[in-house]
């Protein structure tokens, strides 16, 4: 299964490396959202500083919707899904591969956003261990829930509008937990943040498990 996962992840990341949609479109979009938040919440009044963790993660969620759509759009060509089913890759492995490739791309976007909030919002990344310790499980959870929701919307004519409706309610606890953990890190009280990172890890485990178990059901469709 792990070998299958690496194959699928390698394929998706190669597609990304050659088309650069994530780097060229999704990452700039995420930075644009940060700038727009800056316009909406006047940077001089301290609101932006207080809201930085939440804005960071909302932007990541928006970027993840685009990332999931992109991850399945590359497989929407005629016969690609049938071809994938005929490869005899295990469904669980395919799910893990999709999620892994998505997680790598999301981490890249988060890195860009991290630099963005430091430069634009004046965030102080002193508690970086907790920041990384939050971002890793949060990204794993987002990628797993995103890959599962994404495959549910595959092939539907309304997939672009349906995906956010399916995905964002599922990711609400991730937003809540990741924001609290980042708040603790930026406030310099990391001890308050680690339980939230634990919750994020639990969420990631639940959704990776559900994805491995259920991905095949949706793929079986003729």
């Amino acid at each position, binding site marked *: 299964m792990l070998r299958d996962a690496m194959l699928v992840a390698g394929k998706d990341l190669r597609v990304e490396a050659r088309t650069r949609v994530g780097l060229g479109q999704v990452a700039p979009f995420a930075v644009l959202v940060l700038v727009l938040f800056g316009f909406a919440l006047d940077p001089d009044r301290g609101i932006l500083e207080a809201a930085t963790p939440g804005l960071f993660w909302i932007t990541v969620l928006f970027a993840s919707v685009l990332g999931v759509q992109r991850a399945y759009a590359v497989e929407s060509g005629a016969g690609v899904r049938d071809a994938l089913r005929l490869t005899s890759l295990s469904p669980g492995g395919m799910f893990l591969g999709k999620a892994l490739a998505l997680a790598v791309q999301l981490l890249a976007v988060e890195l860009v956003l991290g630099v963005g909030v430091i430069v634009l919002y004046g965030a102080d990344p002193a508690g970086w261990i907790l920041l990384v310790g939050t971002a890793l499980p949060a990204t794993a959870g987002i990628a797993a829930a995103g890959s599962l929701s994404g495959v549910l919307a595959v092939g*539907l004519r309304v997939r672009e509008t349906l995906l956010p409706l*399916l995905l964002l309610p599922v990711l609400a606890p991730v937003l*809540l937990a990741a924001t609290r953990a980042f708040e603790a890190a930026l406030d310099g009280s990391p001890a308050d943040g680690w339980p939230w990172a634990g919750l994020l890890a639990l969420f990631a485990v639940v959704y990776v498990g559900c994805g491995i178990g259920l991905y095949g059901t949706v793929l079986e469709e003729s």
Partner: protein
Amino acid sequence: MSIGNGQSAGTPLATQDTRSVTGHPTTGSPATRVLGIIVLLCLPLVLWLSFVATPPDAVQGESVRLLYVHVPSVTVAYVACFVTFVASIMWLWKRSEWWDLVGSSAAEIGSVFTALTLVSGMIWGQITWGTAWEWDPRLTSTLFLFLLLVGYQALRAASPDRSSRSRRSAVIGLLLVPNILIVNRSVQWWRSLHQDATLFRTDLDFRIEGLMLFTWMFTTAVGMVLLVWLLFHRFRVGWLANRVEERQLSEAVAARRAEATP
């Protein structure tokens, strides 16, 4: 004919030849008519009990009457969602049309009662707490339950054929319960860090007894009968819709064949 016997396509809940006096097919049967009559007879009784017979509450005054709507609708909504959850698991196991229709029917009814729960709760909150919305775990997770049920139905409506509809909605149905548990726990944790752990303050802790308790239990029981009644009818509508879909498909195939052989 009970709804709990989980048989597959063999004997559908839809009665074979159900025609009303007008000659149109109906989803009614003697059993559902009895359920319907029970509900219709009990509803005026519910209104009389909750508006006339019971006294206003010592603490909450007249607003306590809203709870006679609110609490049964919460119960019905959560039972319906749990039925969807179980039916989704059973579908993934048995792959039968029966479980697919049970799950989707319950989800539809559940979303109506979840909406009713939210609206009646917000009106009650506006009167009692002075605010329609609080970031309380119960309120927040009920709202997310509603959003997930909306997503479940949007996904079903968008799926082109029955096979993909059942598959995809069973996955969402299965995720309902873990989702709501995670939302509930995380909101509970979040709120307990910031302010008083509970919103339901002790001065609102009123004792219910006598006629008020009876009204509460009676309306909940009527709500459950209503749920079963609606579930039967919605199931049969879904069953007939599937039959219509099949007939249209076979007619289209026959029409194409007729074109091919001049």
